[in-house]
């Protein structure tokens, strides 16, 4: 049996859509119940719904063989996994945002203050450029940081950029592009190779057909 960890929320819905297109039986996964574990009819697949940031953990430990999760979560968690497919949905960008008029002002600070839900990504990005920063970890409404004066800039994901705009913030730099990825445990890929590769082939075929449509 293969266990697949899905990130709760919109990614899970899109993942189920993709699996259905690939003719993979998801059992009663679509039921909006409070169940955490779902099995398909022939018991060959088991799905678990977990918090996005926990998906890499389940997969790294092998508690799940496969996971579907955003690249942002993968970068932040830094787990040792096989990242096999870019699924193409959940697209957005990881950016540094702030008030553009302050763009030059904030670099005069010895330590730029960065508010973010992604402390590891922020730390890696700025340290690669040799800049020292002070990280302020927030759990939501990160845009408030520069407005209230808690931080100089934020590091966050943006999709349309509307929330930023409404708050007078702008993208200052793009760190990287984000989308949903299919990840596989490093051991499972070998010990359960036939089951996992069959699954991956089905999904890849749907993705290729989608591009050709």
């Amino acid at each position, binding site marked *: 049996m293969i266990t697949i960890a899905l990130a709760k929320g919109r990614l899970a819905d899109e993942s189920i859509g993709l699996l259905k297109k690939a003719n993979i039986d998801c059992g009663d996964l679509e039921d909006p119940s409070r169940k955490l574990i779902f099995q398909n009819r022939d018991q060959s697949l088991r799905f678990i719904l977990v918090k996005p940031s926990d998906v890499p953990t389940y997969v790294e*430990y092998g508690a799940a063989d496969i996971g579907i999760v955003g690249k942002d979560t993968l970068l932040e968690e830094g787990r040792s996994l*096989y*990242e096999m497919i870019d699924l193409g949905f959940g697209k957005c960008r990881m950016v540094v945002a702030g008030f553009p008029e302050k763009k030059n002002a904030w670099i005069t600070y010895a330590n730029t203050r960065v508010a973010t839900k992604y402390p590891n990504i922020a730390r890696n990005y700025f340290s690669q450029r040799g800049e020292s920063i002070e990280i302020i970890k927030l759990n939501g409404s990160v845009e408030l940081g520069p407005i209230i004066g808690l931080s100089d800039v934020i590091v966050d994901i943006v999709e349309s950029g509307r929330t930023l705009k409404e708050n007078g913030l702008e993208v200052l730099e793009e760190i990287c592009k984000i989308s949903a990825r299919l990840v596989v445990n*490093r*051991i499972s*890929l*070998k*010990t359960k190779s036939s089951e996992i590769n069959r699954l991956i082939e089905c999904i890849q075929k749907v993705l290729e057909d989608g591009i050709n449509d």
Partner: protein
Amino acid sequence: MKNWKIHIPPGVQDYLPDECYNKRKIEEKIRRIFYLNGYDEIETPIFEYFDVFTGGKSSIEQEQMYKFFEIGGRILVLRPDNTMPIARIAATKMKNASLPLRLSYISSIYRYEEMQYGKQREVAQAGMELLGVEGPEGDAEVISTAVQILLELGLKEFQIDIGQVDFFKGLIEEAGLDEEQSEEIRSLIDHKNMLGLEVLLRKFSFSSKVKEILLNLPKLYGNADMLKKARNLSLSPRCRNAIDNLEEVYGIIQDYGLGNYITFDLGMVQSLKYYTGMIFRGMTRELGYPICAGGRYDGLASDFGYDLPATGFALGIKRILMVLERQRALEKIPGIDYLVVVDQNVRSIGYSRMQALRKAGNRVEYFIPSKECQDPLAYARKKGIRRVLIVQARGTTEVVIDSLLDRVMDAKMNEGGETQ
């Protein structure tokens, strides 16, 4: 205020009796296999100079080591690795020993690691090193010994996944990349990140032939047929030699009748500074991470002043314990066979009775009455001891306790207690 007296630091553990019993059994089985294969066990200090583990071929980061200071002297570290001390010994105290050297160890290593599985920072290991042997015979000896051990430990299913770092190194050499660029590519291949690899390779201008092989590297895994596929890609001599080496190693393992445990992965590219040839990992369906790992590390001993080819591997004992538990193959520690109650005036008879039972392999406990329990039968019932031997001047009585019915089943007189 937290009472630190009753806590242990993160990353270490107590081995309580049942787990400790199984750990020792595993260690004894491993020790026996090493011994039978001609490997001599050695022990190295638990702390050494920091210098032993740094520079040259070491793949251990400074941040991972537990460091402290010798009074008035140099930096010391808790042993973060077992192989480097063995390379040190091979290059110094055993330099005049005839080659090859076959050495083994069963001891823990200490590493500070944030993300390590289970966050173990004291890692119980067993391993062996074969020094002074070049070529596939030595590599096959290491792999086949690993298989012998996993079989002896009773693992129901497992596989050994083999790679060859020289294949990747050959491609990097052909592409003419520097260390930083090759590390970027290595990391993407190590994560089988095809997309990232494709995007990155577009930036480089080396031959598209090498690019295509690099791009395919994450997919070059599977059974021995994969090696044929890899061979058909047009390759530099260095890459071809790497494939030749794997095929030779595989041929030997097949001759040993162990070929069905083997799979291959040319995209296995970790610890490149350290490894120089064949590398491998042992895995099972029960655990999401390897249970053993090893490979060829020809340059390491030269860090210590002795140019010596070498190959070896190590097992993670805690991981083996976890796999065996999931396969329901762990045992409870055996109970006490006899509780012996001795009258003070026949102490010497009592003691020799106990010793006779112990010699015959029984676990024997001497009954010492306490405030909580004066009655040996009640004590035996509570502890699940089936036989109680009561040694008195008038003879010895054996009482068999039926734990289900909680009553004395059988009491028989045993002549001879007095006459001894």
